[in-house]
């Protein structure tokens, strides 16, 4: 685990006396990459919905009209793909399945109650977060490839009209999946208080780590002991 991603700081935090333990979760690079992803996703969802359902066509005014929306949407898609590749390469190893993931998923009732004590101790990511990660991993390339097939301005001649019909339907279905998974992702971050700080400031409180990712916290504490100069402030 890279030092910059997971620093354990004990003692008064920089901005307030409480909490006493803070745990670094995301580096500046990760956070910037995440927010590029987030922004491009939101723009893609808005412009995509505008082209998908007449009720949302009015959203095209946000992009300067239908013509610009049609042109911009795939361009933003390329930005999202690149940001996702960066995210995937750096985070896939933290999202590999473990035995405890199945027990966590079986305890879905406890998860929804927010009763973390009734669940197995969770490492850096819980099974739900991993599922979101792998769902995005399937959906982003799926959306990119089907998007290429219907990116008529540059790639019209690459495919036949029957192929484009398959792609345009698959693109819509993948996008519905993407937005649905994103709703779960965004809601979980809001519901579990203290989570969003990990993506804005880069750290979480010790209590947050203890409550939701206890195994991860234990590993950090154990790992710090073996390092030559633990960052204890």
């Amino acid at each position, binding site marked *: 685990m890279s030092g910059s991603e997971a620093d*354990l700081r*004990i003692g008064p935090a920089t901005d307030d006396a*409480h*909490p*006493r*333990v803070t745990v670094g979760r995301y580096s500046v690079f990760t956070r910037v990459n995440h927010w590029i992803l987030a922004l491009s996703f939101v723009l893609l969802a808005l412009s995509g919905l*505008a*082209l*998908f*359902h*007449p*009720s949302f*066509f009015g959203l*095209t005014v946000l992009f300067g*009209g*239908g*013509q610009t*929306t*049609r*042109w911009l949407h795939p361009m933003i898609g390329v930005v999202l793909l690149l940001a996702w590749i960066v995210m995937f390469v750096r985070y896939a190893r933290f999202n590999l399945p473990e035995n405890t993931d199945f027990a966590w998923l079986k305890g879905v009732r406890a998860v*929804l*109650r*927010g009763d973390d004590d009734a669940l197995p101790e969770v490492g850096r990511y819980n099974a739900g977060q991993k599922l979101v990660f792998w769902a995005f991993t399937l959906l982003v390339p799926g959306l990119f490839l089907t998007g290429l097939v*219907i990116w*008529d*301005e540059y790639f*019209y001649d690459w495919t036949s*009209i*029957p192929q*484009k*019909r*398959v792609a*345009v*339907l698959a693109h*819509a*279905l993948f996008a*519905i999946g993407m*937005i*649905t998974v994103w*709703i*779960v992702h965004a*809601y979980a971050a*809001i*519901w579990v*208080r*203290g989570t969003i700080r990990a993506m804005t400031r880069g750290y979480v*409180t*010790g*209590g*947050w780590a*203890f*409550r939701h990712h206890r195994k991860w*916290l*234990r590993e950090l*504490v*154990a790992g*710090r*002991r073996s390092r030559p100069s*633990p960052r*204890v402030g």
Partner: protein
Amino acid sequence: MTISVNPPVTATPPGFGAQDMVRRSASSIPPPARQPEPVTKLIDVSKCIGCKACQVACLEWNDLQHDEEIGVNVGVYENPHDLTPNTWTLMRFTEWVNPDTDNLEWLIRKDGCMHCADPGCLKACPSPGAIVQYSNGIVDFDHEKCIGCGYCVKGCPFNIPRISNVTHRAYKCSLCSDRVAVGQGPACAKACPTKAIVFGTRSDMEKHAAGRITDLKSRGFDKAGLYNPPGVGGTHVMYVLHHADRPHLYAGLPDNPRISPLVEIWKGMAKYAGLAVMGLTAAFGFLHHVVAGANRVTEHDEEEAERLTEDRAA
């Protein structure tokens, strides 16, 4: 039939307009107050001599630029090689040896928009009002509202609309809606020297076609018939074919065209189910937050974290 009538020289108000729309892309509209008799263009391929006067008339009337590359010959009579944003109608030539008679038959078909009663282009179009269908049967594109997405290309069962990479808008035959509005037939029909293309009311065209088919049958074309495919609800451009049992002989005219089921799902079920899935997921989140409340870190958690880290630090 209107084609032999000369145009009026005084200003004529249009005979139909926005109040006569029966369908408007990505919108729901009230039914029009009046129902004129639908119009139809009838193309009798058995009378066509392949002169391309219709193509020229189409370019001329619709003020289209011939932007095709010069100097390319791939050994067929088609010129240009396909419909383009500036070629709304195209003579397609097929050399076919009839296995029954061993005769070489030169099948010539004037390709272009069929003005379907159930238009796939309109169904697929995401831009409100960019494609409209009038009560007289004409399916027309409003280029001002077109966003150039190419969905109409995917919706069309006949492979007709073309997107210009210059203007980024879709183009196809309008059935000369501007001419029809002032009581004139389409330019192609007007120019046709053999009257293989005729235009008029639906019932007149059906009568005319029946006469032509009887004539063709009496000359030995016992499979002669009318091409008015029911899969798209019928079309307002119909063909008289001498081999009506095999439309595909005529440069791949679809035997039984229909809007692709993929397009139907995309523009039907997927639209409603998709909104439902996304909406229900968001609603579940909202309800869950109301019922379960925020998942907060407690003071106890902070103390436990402190204890855990202090134990190890010691």
